[in-house]
């Protein structure tokens, strides 16, 4: 059984606010500090995934396992898990190798994080902010 945490309105609103803040910060850093921006894209994607899970399932992942987080997200918003997986696999590359993220990889991360943040905002529009 995947480790999960119950959501409430404060958690959902807080995670959405962070997702937007991380995404905005990542976009503004992207050209000068690509690796830091990469980390922030990942943080934005994780926070947005939590919002989607909170809104649709009432819980979010508290597991350190990337696979479990992606699996839970697929139940909340089928198709979005591939964007989370994209972010998490590039995070691994950034964290464990000496190479900087390439421009193409950063663009890929930006697209994935932007998709997740927009999906989270749309889920709130469709379900209300109360969860």
């Amino acid at each position: 059984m995947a480790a999960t945490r119950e959501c409430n309105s404060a958690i959902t609103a807080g995670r959405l606010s962070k997702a937007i803040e991380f995404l905005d910060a990542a976009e503004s850093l992207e050209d000068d500090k690509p690796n830091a921006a990469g980390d922030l894209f990942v943080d934005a994607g994780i926070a947005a995934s939590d919002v989607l899970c909170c809104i649709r399932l009432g819980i979010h992942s508290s597991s350190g396992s990337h696979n479990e987080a992606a699996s839970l997200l697929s139940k909340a918003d089928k198709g979005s898990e591939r964007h989370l997986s994209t972010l998490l696999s590039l995070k691994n590359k950034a964290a464990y190798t000496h190479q900087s993220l390439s421009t193409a990889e950063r663009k890929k991360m930006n697209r994935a994080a932007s998709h997740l943040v927009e999906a989270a905002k749309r889920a709130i529009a469709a379900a209300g902010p109360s969860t």
Partner: protein
Amino acid sequence: MQFNRPLATVTPTLDGDVLAVLANSDTAFTITQIQRILTTASGEGIRKVLTRLTAQGVVFHDQVGRTNTYQLNTEHLAAEPIIALSRITASFLNRLETHLERWGEVLKYAAVFGSAATGRMTLDSDIDLLLVRSTDSDNPSEEANLVAWEQRVTELGRLVTAWTGNDGRVVEYTENEIREAAAAGEPLLSDVAREGLTVAGTRAWLNRQLRPIREAREGAL
């Protein structure tokens, strides 16, 4: 209509809210889980709804030990329209995006903002739209473009009302105007950047228009 209560378009009851929760995920829920998502409904009310829906065959009931779970029966004849209704917000946004794509490059950016974007809609809420028009002052056909733009904006307001039953309210800027409004600290623009649902252009573009002004203001403090 209310985007945050999609099935209320046909049934303004708890039944609609419960069905919307079940239709948005292909997973099984306990009553407690549904209550956590709906927040204002009682557990007993949800149980009664699920008993009714199970009797209609549209919901599967399963019991493992002492735990009762409920899941939408996606093979039921009624499942398809229920799922379609539960995704009415996505359908609206997709229809809006498709419509705005036809406007071409004259439209730099568009977003839904206000209560429709934040899940706080009531039945009487307007649907607020921000549109940013490309500025091309050297273009000799600017006057003709402006007339065509105004016609499109009028038609857009009519379409949004026809699609939803809510008033479509459009706030328009040109590219130059949006920079001026940002410089003047217009809070509407930061609200759109934070909460708006982008339906044309990219949110990154909007942030780029606002960023130099934001940075200059922060630098001056």
